[in-house]
Structure formats: C-alpha cells, structure tokens
C-alpha cells in the first residue's frame, strides 16, 4: 500500500519537503511497517527516524496499529515546544 506521510520540523528540513509517499509491501501495513519502509526509502534520515513515532489521525500509534486508506499519517520526531 502507498502511504502519504506528513513531516515536520527538523525531519521536514532534512527531507526538504513536508510529506513523503512511501510504499509498503503489506496491503494493510502497521505503523511499524510504515516507519521501516520510510527508513529504507530515506537512508540519510535513518538516525533521525530512530527517535520518531508515528501519529495516525492525530494520535500517537503503537507499532501494531493498522494503517487504513484515508488515515492521516505523520512522523513525529523530537519536538521542541515551550
């Protein structure tokens, strides 16, 4: 399945864009599958991605969370509010 992933902050700076489209082998991928596919597709971002969590529909997702078509998926790296 093809998943559009939103990027923010340092991750968006590193990628030079606000979103990336990643391809997973699974037809119904988990959050872990998406993060792994992203890491494979963007080896230069590997070290940043190890500290990342996936958010699905505005909530942090477990590794096992299933991604469905139409879900809003975002990678949340180190945040820096306050």
């Amino acid at each position, binding site marked *: 399945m093809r998943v559009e992933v939103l990027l923010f*902050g340092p991750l968006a700076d590193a990628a030079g864009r606000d979103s990336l489209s990643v391809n997973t082998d699974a037809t119904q991928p988990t959050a872990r599958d998406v993060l792994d596919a992203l890491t494979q597709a963007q080896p230069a971002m590997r070290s940043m991605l190890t500290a990342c969590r996936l958010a699905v529909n505005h909530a942090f997702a477990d590794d096992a969370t299933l991604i469905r078509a139409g879900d809003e998926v975002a990678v949340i790296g180190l945040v820096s509010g306050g």
Partner: protein
Amino acid sequence: MACAVAHIMDGPLNPSVTHGHMDGGAGAVVTFLGVVRSEEHGARIDALEYTTYDPMAERILRALAADAIERFSVRSIAAEHSRGRVAVGECSFRLTIASVHRREALDAADWFIERMKRDAPIWKRPIPAPSPAVIDGAAI
C-alpha cells in the same frame, strides 16, 4: 469543577495574567509563562518561529491537561502555545493551574511542561540576530 482547556494561538501570547473570577474553592493559582530567550544554543537570536501540527498539538495539550487534573487532583488547567514568530522577550507558552493547595499546582505544572516537551507536536526554529556587519551594512 475540573476543567481542561488548550489552545494554539497565532503569534506571541498576551503576557497579562487576568483572573476575572476565581471560585472560592481554589486557594492557589499558578501561572507559568514561557518567554523566548535571547540566546539559543549559545547564539544570539531575534525570535523563534514555531511550527505546530494542527490539530494534533491542541489535542495532545488538552489530553495532558485532563491527565494532570486526574494525577494531581487540581481543579483546572488552561494551556496556550504560540504558532509562528515570537520575538525575544515575548511569551510563547502560558499554563494556568488552579488547585486547593499550592503543592499540587506546582507539581502539575512541572509534570505538564515535561510531558509537553516530549509529546506535543510543536517545533521551534531560531531566527538568528543579524550580525553587527549586517546591521551596519559593512564589516567592522
């Protein structure tokens, strides 16, 4: 009555803390203001530019407020965070906690900010202060 509110606002927050009506149950009101400092990682800056992932940022802040109300038995928590440019000396974050006694409010403030810095999808980018050479239009 327990009450959790959170908002992301454009630009700097109003640094005035007004408590129009305070109910007779809360004996302590703690307000925390986060102010943009003139240095970021040792370099002088003019401002911070905040990016937020909406509406997840508000949702996380509201969930943290509700969680803190439970954990620390405080009466209410209101959190506001800036989006966009906030200049040095301006306020980018405000947290107001009302409780019966002071300790719960102080502990809840500490916990909330710690969790916000871990979980709220908000990012800042420093806007460097111009170097003297740029200000003067010529190197010194």
